[in-house]
């Protein structure tokens, strides 16, 4: 990643234009041409510097629901359980954490009832209980990282 890539990552975490040639417009703000921006974005995505490029939806405002879940899984069983949990499309991200509760995943779905159903499925598939911690209030959500 060079300075130009850093400028792209820093400048394009929001505000991508809604127009017919948005890459051309974004590129001109950054002082480069459309082709260069597209090719650098392709590389940033391929090398996993970016996880994706596009709209970040707020699933809850779309009429959906989120929840955070935790499980306590013995290390020897982590691969199997991780694969079973991740196989559910509702699971957005899943982190292993250094704690007695070592598996933490966020799910998004159409409703809390639908998510509760996935929780039950995961419990049945893995044989471990799932601690379901839906958020009750949001105090702040913003994450813009500088590259």
């Amino acid at each position, binding site marked *: 990643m060079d300075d130009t890539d850093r400028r*792209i*990552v820093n400048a*394009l*975490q*929001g*505000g991508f234009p809604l*127009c*017919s*040639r*948005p*890459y051309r417009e974004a590129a001109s703000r950054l002082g480069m041409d*459309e082709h260069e921006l*597209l090719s650098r*974005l*392709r590389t*940033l*995505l391929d*090398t996993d*510097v*970016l*996880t994706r*490029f*596009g*709209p*970040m*939806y*707020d*699933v809850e*405002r*779309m009429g959906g629901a*989120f929840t*955070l879940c935790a499980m306590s899984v013995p290390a020897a069983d982590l691969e199997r359980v*991780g694969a079973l949990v991740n196989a559910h*499309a*509702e*699971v*957005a*991200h*899943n*982190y*292993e*954490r*250094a*704690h007695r*509760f070592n598996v*933490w*995943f966020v799910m*998004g*779905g159409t409703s809390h009832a639908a998510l509760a159903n996935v929780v039950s499925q995961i419990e049945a598939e893995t044989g471990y209980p799932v601690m379901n*911690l*839906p*958020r*009750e*209030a*949001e*105090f*702040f959500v*913003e*994450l813009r990282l500088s*590259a």
Partner: protein
Amino acid sequence: MNPIDERIVRATQAGLPLVPEPYAAVARTLGIPEEELLARLSSMLADGRIRRIGAVPNHYALGYRANAMSVWDVADEAVDELGTAVGALPFVSHCYRRPRRLPDWPYNLFAMVHGRGRAETEVCVLSIRDLLGSALRAHDVLYSTRILKKTGLRLA
């Protein structure tokens, strides 16, 4: 949700195509005019259904390797006011109130802290502790050791 909006979400939640006219390309697959797609995206952005449009970075790749989930047991009568104050701290990316699950889990306030290393996140955690003061009963910090999956929230 409006069925066309829902199709738009499904078609774009994994990302926009990297072609000169990405919206025209998405509109074609949905069988709607590009202008309609742009108008619908614009209204979703205006009412917050879209938080923003652009690059979603991978923390680890940018050097933010320490991802600390700090969890706090805060007196119920104080948690909303203090949660707002914690959420306003510049290094806190997400801050939520969640239910306790006693006896296993006494914590009702979650604050996610991202830093380039543990030394940085530990200082952040100490400032949260100071801010919570006498309303704080217990806390813990959970560091991530591995990403098992990261695709972003999607409609299933």
